[in-house]
């Protein structure tokens, strides 16, 4: 636990906080290009956040302390998760704090409080958003766990740093179980972060919004924090996927020298990931709510197939 | 076998008290006299018990009467429960008089026959001569028949008539069994009274002719079995125990069934000694299992509170018969304990049921409600009494059922399933019915009564203590009795 691993840790946390809006901007600009619209630019999210931070906070009369505490908690969990997932390097002091299951539960706390704040004001949309969010989450978790289980079976551990270590040192062999797990994981990421096939992030149309419905009543700096957290969440899930399945190029030894290269690799991978997400979003339309269980059922099936194929094939 | 005067005294007291009560009749102090006489009887029985502890088994009256471990504990139990019933009947019968259900003549008859009934029970316990045992049991039936029809209602008379005829027939068949036993004993012990004495029969049990004795046991089993109320000879019991006045139902259910089972147990010991097979035990087990099952299931559908407790008596007598039939130290010990516990609990439960019926003016269980609210002591004693009856642990009946069930699993596992079903259904039936009676709001048609709580509390306290700790002398008595009966 040398000094520079602490520095790397600090750098990574700042990176997560700083780069997340950029990644979201990149995804939005890609979508505009694909849909032939003129883009507001890569840094539009920063301008939105800055605007929201300076705006005045309007609260309902019966808003309780949960409503005002939730944005900060969301931001806290996201930053903590950012510190744990090996994005730039492996030997992070915080790495031992949590393995993959704990990470999923960190996101679960955020979702729990967000759902509560959705119901706090007592409007119909808040309740609807919370109810649908919890339904989707409860179906996504088993599928997510099966995918992680397959990965941990292959790499004999559930802590991310160890998984990255094993994949990095081992040679590249194409395993069917890992591919099934990867596809399942991508499906689940779309569900968890509320992207198109499950939920539409860009709209406030009552019938289609799930994540947006919960934060309808937020304003000012609270709304800014929540927006920022959802961007970070997308960024972290993509990094989680990269770390679990394609960690090549990450700084293995604790040296500062390898950081720029790792940063370059990360930006490239994120670019490609953004491209994949946008391709899926423009290609598909939002599904009806009660088709989502089948969608997550498919994800669960793929993950289980991955696990079974691991035992049967190798 | 030394001679004992207290035994004669013990036998004579109830007879004299019957005479006294015939004179006292229905005057103001009659109930108090009745209590005094019963207490005297109980004192005599305690003296006899102490004497038995000091110098062992005794004979009396030209060895017409005898005392040994088995009948001393039943005698003390009988006189104790008679005393507490006398205490209970003072208040109960006074209220019945106020409500005009019994008149002057009936009360006089009630008190005389109360003491005669105690006398006949003690006589049958203490008699060494099997003929005298038969006569005393017949006397017990005769004394209680008119008591059952004391209220002169059509159903009471019908119940008394059935009780008289069915028990009369049963007792007659038992007489034939006694004749056969005497016939077999005569071959070994020679002519005259010597051949009819339990003490001699037990000594010479091995040499008696097995085929005669097994035939005699069939008659004795059906004869005295009718008195015990074993299914299919049980039909009179629910009617007789529910139509008579409550003190009489308590005595009938609590004590008379024990006396009848006592004679069967004695006879089984004799038959086992001579046939050396488990012939008698298997028959008793069969009767026991059928009684437990039929009584267990019929408890579910009872509408009258005393009828339900009568069926519960049939079930508990079935369990005791099964235990004695199973044989072995554990089961026989449990059977004796079960008799003791059942008598105390059943009489206490009949007392509270009597009070509950008086408070609500009816024996219909649907109309008895809210006892916790209207009369907490009656309510709680009824609840605890029924819990004890259903076999909840802190009470003694669970202890004996625990021993019986575990003995069954080890010696005859297949029967244990039927016992479980019988006990479980009876438990559910009893609790399902007692619950609405004690809980809920007290209806307006209830009238407050001065209830005799002392006997009930004493009985339930003894049952609770026995459930957790069996005193030394009783344990010693039971072990000697088990040696005889095993």
């Amino acid at each position, binding site marked *: 636990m040398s000094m520079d691993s602490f520095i790397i840790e600090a750098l990574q946390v700042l990176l997560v906080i700083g780069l997340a809006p950029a990644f979201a901007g990149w995804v939005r600009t890609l979508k505009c290009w694909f849909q032939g619209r003129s883009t507001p630019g890569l840094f539009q999210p920063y301008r939105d956040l800055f605007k929201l931070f300076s705006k005045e906070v309007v609260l309902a009369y019966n808003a309780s302390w949960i409503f005002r505490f939730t944005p900060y908690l969301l931001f806290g969990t996201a930053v903590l998760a950012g510190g744990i997932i090996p994005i730039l390097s492996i030997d992070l002091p915080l790495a031992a704090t949590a393995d993959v299951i704990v990470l999923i539960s960190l996101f679960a706390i955020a979702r729990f409080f967000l759902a509560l704040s959705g119901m706090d004001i007592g409007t119909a949309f808040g309740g609807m958003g919370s109810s649908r969010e919890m339904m989707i989450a409860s179906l996504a978790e088993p599928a997510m766990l099966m995918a992680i289980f397959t990965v941990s079976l292959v790499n004999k551990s559930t802590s991310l740093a160890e998984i990255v270590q094993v994949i990095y040192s081992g040679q590249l062999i194409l395993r069917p179980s890992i591919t099934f797990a990867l596809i399942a994981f991508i499906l689940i990421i779309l569900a968890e972060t509320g992207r198109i096939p499950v939920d539409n992030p860009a709209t406030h149309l009552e019938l289609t919004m799930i994540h947006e419905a919960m934060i309808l009543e937020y304003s000012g700096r609270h709304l800014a924090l929540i927006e920022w957290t959802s961007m970070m969440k997308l960024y972290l899930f993509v990094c989680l996927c990269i770390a679990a399945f394609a960690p090549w190029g990450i700084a293995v030894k604790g040296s500062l020298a390898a950081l720029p290269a790792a940063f370059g690799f990360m930006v490239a991978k994120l670019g490609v990931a953004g491209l994949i997400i946008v391709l899926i979003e423009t290609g598909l339309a939002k599904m009806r709510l009660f088709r989502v269980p089948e969608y997550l059922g498919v994800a669960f099936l793929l993950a289980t197939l991955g696990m079974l194929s691991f035992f049967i094939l190798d | 076998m030394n001679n004992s005067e207290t035994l004669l005294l013990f036998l004579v007291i109830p007879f004299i008290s019957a005479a006294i009560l015939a004179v006292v009749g229905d005057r103001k102090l009659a109930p108090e006299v009745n209590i005094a006489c019963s207490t005297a009887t109980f004192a005599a029985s305690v003296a006899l018990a102490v004497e038995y502890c000091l110098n062992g088994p005794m004979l009396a009256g030209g060895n017409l009467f005898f005392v040994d471990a088995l009948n001393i504990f039943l005698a003390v139990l009988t006189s104790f429960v008679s005393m507490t019933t006398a205490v209970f009947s003072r208040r109960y019968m006074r209220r019945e008089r106020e409500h005009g259900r019994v008149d002057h003549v009936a009360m006089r008859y009630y008190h005389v026959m109360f003491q005669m009934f105690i006398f006949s029970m003690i006589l049958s316990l203490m008699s060494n001569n099997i003929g005298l045992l038969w006569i005393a049991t017949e006397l017990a039936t005769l004394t209680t028949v008119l008591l059952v029809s004391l209220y002169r209602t059509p159903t009471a008379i*019908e119940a008394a008539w059935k009780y008289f005829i069915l028990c009369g027939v049963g007792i007659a068949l038992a007489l034939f069994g006694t004749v056969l036993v005497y*016939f077999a004993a005569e071959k070994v012990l020679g002519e005259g009274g010597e051949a009819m004495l339990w003490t001699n029969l037990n000594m010479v049990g091995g040499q008696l002719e097995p085929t005669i004795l097994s035939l005699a046991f069939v008659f004795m089993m059906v004869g005295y079995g009718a008195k015990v109320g074993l299914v299919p000879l049980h039909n009179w019991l629910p009617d007789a125990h529910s139509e008579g006045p409550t003190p009489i139902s308590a005595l009938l259910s609590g004590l008379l069934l024990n006396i009848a089972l006592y004679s069967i147990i004695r006879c089984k010991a004799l038959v086992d000694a001579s046939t050396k097979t488990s012939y008698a035990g298997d028959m008793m087990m069969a009767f026991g299992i059928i009684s437990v099952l039929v009584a267990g299931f*019929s408890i579910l*559908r009872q509408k009258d509170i005393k009828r339900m407790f009568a069926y519960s008596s049939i079930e508990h007598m079935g369990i005791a018969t099964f235990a004695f039939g199973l044989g072995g130290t554990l089961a026989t010990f449990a059977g004796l304990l079960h008799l003791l516990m059942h008598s105390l609990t059943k009489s206490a439960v009949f007392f509270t049921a009597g009070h509950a019926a008086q408070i609500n003016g009816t024996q219909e269980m649907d109309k008895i409600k809210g006892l916790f609210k209207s009369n907490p002591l009656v309510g709680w004693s009824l609840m605890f009494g029924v819990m004890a009856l259903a076999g909840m642990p802190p009470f003694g009946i669970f202890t004996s059922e625990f021993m019986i069930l575990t003995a069954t699993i080890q010696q005859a596992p297949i029967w244990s399933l039927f016992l479980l079903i019988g006990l479980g259904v009876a438990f559910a039936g009893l609790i399902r019915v007692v619950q609405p009676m004690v809980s809920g709001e007290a209806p307006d048609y209830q009238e407050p009564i001065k209830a005799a709580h002392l006997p009930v509390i004493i009985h339930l306290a003894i049952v609770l203590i026995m459930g957790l700790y069996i005193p030394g002398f009783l344990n010693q008595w039971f072990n000697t009795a088990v040696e005889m009966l095993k």
Partner: protein
Amino acid sequence: MEITLETASQVIDFLAALVLITSFAMLAQRRIYGLIHLFAWQGLFLAINTAFVGYMADKSHLFISAGLTLGLKVFLLPYIFYILVHRLNIRKEVENMVNIPTLMFIGIALVILSYYVTAPVRELSTLMTRSTLTFALATVMMGLLMMITRRNAVTQVIGFLAMENSLFFAATSATYGMPLVVELGVALDILIAAFIFGIFFFHINTTFDSLDVDRMAKLKEDEMDE
């Protein structure tokens, strides 16, 4: 006068046969007065048999019980029944639940059964009256049968007392009668039983104003379903 052993046993067997015949007749009898007469005759034959056995086996206590039987079962009880039937003006003829021929067949079956049942007793017994035990058991069973098939309370009681008679008869035939204490006790019980029956007849007649047993069938559970 000296009576040889086998003539005595012939006399005893003859008396036993007479007792059996009377119980068959009681099964078949339709009229109450006839029933009471037959009951008295049965008591008489029983008393003679007991006295004769007492004389042959020179057992003095048998004479006392013979006298008791004579007094009780031949004179006192029938007299009580006469008064009851007269006072309560019970219908004279007694209808039967089972027709007479089948009753006869059942009776015969009972005799065969009791012969089969008392076989071991006969081999073991050395007394001259050992063969009459079969008839004693048969009459006990027929007493029970009579109680089952009759509808009137009085006839049921007569059946019950017939059963007691045959038990007394069994005692004398199996063991030359039981010790005196027991004999007296049994007789006392039967007397009290008869006395209580009398009281019952008055109660039943006042409450049900008929002695028909089928009236008394209210305490039942089969049709009270949930």
